């Protein structure tokens, strides 16, 4: 016994196989090959499958025209009849063709296994040599090896053409600038054309009405928006700026969670300049960004008893009594808090914009510790 050593190939002990290959077993006939009755039966079965398929195709067509959609759906047993009937008929029409064809192949088509020899994937030595020779002839005739000036200048020129491909993508979108640092809450209190814009009122999301501080009871949670989204004129904003995509952009940063709790529960944190957030709440009403600081899902799953706010996407949990501190989950930063006040008419307003960017983290973002 000698080990076969290829320089590349691990040594596989060349022990003879314990059992010799008995070879392909003898072919055995199927009942359909030797029994006329069985054969006829199989033939009828296959044809029946195709017949069933045709039947379901007809039923599909009938359902298509007979069953209503649009604002007066045909309903059967609490289900949309059109979808169900079309799907079932189409599915069965298709499956019976498949079953018929497969049954045909299994029962009636010749079932002799045949043997085909394999060839190694690698090409023969002669072919390899011929290819190499062709390559070197081609290379020599072009003179690419002998003329480095041509070769290098060509490579450089072609390589440079990659730049237009990259540069042309520049206009995919505008540069970020400081867009992520501000929200539309900052519009309140601005001066536009010499007029001072009133402080931004907090409005109920979807309903659109501003909220009086006296409206809320302890335990109330309000999903809120800046009032400008519903009443742009009051804040000297062009209505177009709060429509369509602009509206979506504003909502993705300005959405707010308002919660009224027992004022004694609130542990005011610190502001960016080290001051206290004591006056950021009104009668136990606090306001936080609704956009999660992890990857930006809106969060409003609040537990009234604990003031813990949970994100439904990745379960980050924030304590709204403690400056939005992360108490659980993957979020790396507390929720930004919006400083609240009350205007002359008793409505809740934002003292200013958020004092930090809202939403998911990004590279240019700064952070201050508020605890």
């Amino acid at each position, binding site marked *: 016994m000698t080990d076969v050593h290829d320089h590349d190939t691990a040594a596989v002990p060349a022990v003879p196989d314990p059992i010799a290959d008995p070879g392909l077993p003898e072919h055995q*006939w199927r009942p359909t090959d030797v029994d006329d009755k069985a054969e006829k039966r199989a033939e009828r079965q296959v044809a029946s499958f195709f017949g069933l398929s045709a039947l379901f195709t007809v039923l599909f067509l009938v359902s298509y025209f007979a069953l209503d959609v649009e604002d007066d*759906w045909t309903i059967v047993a609490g*289900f*949309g009849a059109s979808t169900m009937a079309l799907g079932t008929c189409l599915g069965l029409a298709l499956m019976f063709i498949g079953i018929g064809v497969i049954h045909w192949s299994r029962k009636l088509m010749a079932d002799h296994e045949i043997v085909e020899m394999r060839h190694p994937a690698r090409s023969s030595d002669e072919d390899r040599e011929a290819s190499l020779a062709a390559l070197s002839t081609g290379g020599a005739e072009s003179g690419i090896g002998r003329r480095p000036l041509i070769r290098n200048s060509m490579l450089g020129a072609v390589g440079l053409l990659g730049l237009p491909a990259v540069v042309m993508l520049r206009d995919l979108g505008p540069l970020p600038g400081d867009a992520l640092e501000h929200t539309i809450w900052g519009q309140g209190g601005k001066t536009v054309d010499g007029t001072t814009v009133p402080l931004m009122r907090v409005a109920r999301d979807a309903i659109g009405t501003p909220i009086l501080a006296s*409206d*809320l*009871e302890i335990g109330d949670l309000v*999903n809120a928006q800046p009032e400008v989204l519903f009443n742009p004129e009051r804040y000297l904003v062009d209505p177009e700026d709060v429509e369509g995509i602009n509206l979506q952009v504003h909502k993705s940063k300005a959405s707010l969670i308002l919660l009224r709790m027992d004022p004694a529960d609130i542990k005011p944190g610190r502001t960016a300049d080290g001051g206290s957030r004591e006056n950021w709440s009104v009668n136990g009403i606090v306001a936080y960004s609704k956009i999660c600081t992890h990857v930006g899902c809106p969060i409003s799953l609040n537990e009234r008893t604990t003031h813990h706010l949970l994100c439904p996407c990745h379960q980050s949990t924030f304590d709204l009594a403690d400056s939005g501190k992360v108490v659980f989950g993957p979020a790396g930063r507390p929720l930004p808090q919006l400083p609240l006040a009350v205007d002359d008419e008793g409505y809740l307003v934002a003292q200013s914009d958020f004092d930090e960017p809202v939403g998911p983290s990004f590279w240019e973002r700064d952070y201050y510790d508020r605890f």
Partner: protein
Amino acid sequence: MVLLVGLLLTGGLYAAFSPAQADSATAADEELIQEGRELFLVGCAFCHGQNGEGVLTQGGSQYGPALTDVGAAAVDFQVGTGRMPMAQPGSQAPRKEVVYSDAEIEALAAFVDSLGTGPAIPDEELYSTEGMDEDELEELVVRGGQIFLANCTACHNFEGSGGAMPRGGYAPKIRGVDSKHIYEAMLTGPQSMDTFSDGNIPPEDKKAVIAYLNTLDEQPGYGGFSFGSLGPVSEGITAWLIGLGVPVAFAIWIAAHTTRSSKKKDEAQA
């Protein structure tokens, strides 16, 4: 029965508007409250205290919270959905079979209502959409859907099938629940739920949410069976089990050996 409801409403309104004078109710109210007190002492006082003042555990946490200012609506919801009396104390009160009869619930509600302030049991016209014309109702449903998506789906799921909350808590399924109980839940914030008082979501908008939930209940399955309405998780499981399972079963059939005959062809033909 009608009389009772009427009385109860009067009592509730009384309680809402003049809580300080709740004890000067009419004689019929007094009787109902007395009946409720007796039921309360037997069934509720162990956790909530004899006068609904709440019971603290030795560790200082609440055994049963104070009920002095929860109002009749809270009792009607908690007892009317079987959440109270609880099988065991805890922050989550699962929905169970209702233990008290309607009359008993009314009595309990009247008693708790007499303990202090709190919302009354809502009048049926606050949540019922009966008698609205079609266009009006459609508009209400659309509005309700938007309010529902803004305020409720985060915890209760877009189909109202419920969701998980921190530390083992959950927001229950809210489909197939009485309109009155939905209204009361918004009003009182049962267990860990936030309250949506009338100052938060006005009564008309609460009605809109309920109208939307009712259309969800009545809505046919346009696209066929849904699996627990849990979204992509149940869909993924279905895709693997049926979408892949059935083709694999067919593949096994396709590649399986067919039956063989021991006969030879010539013999059969001979």
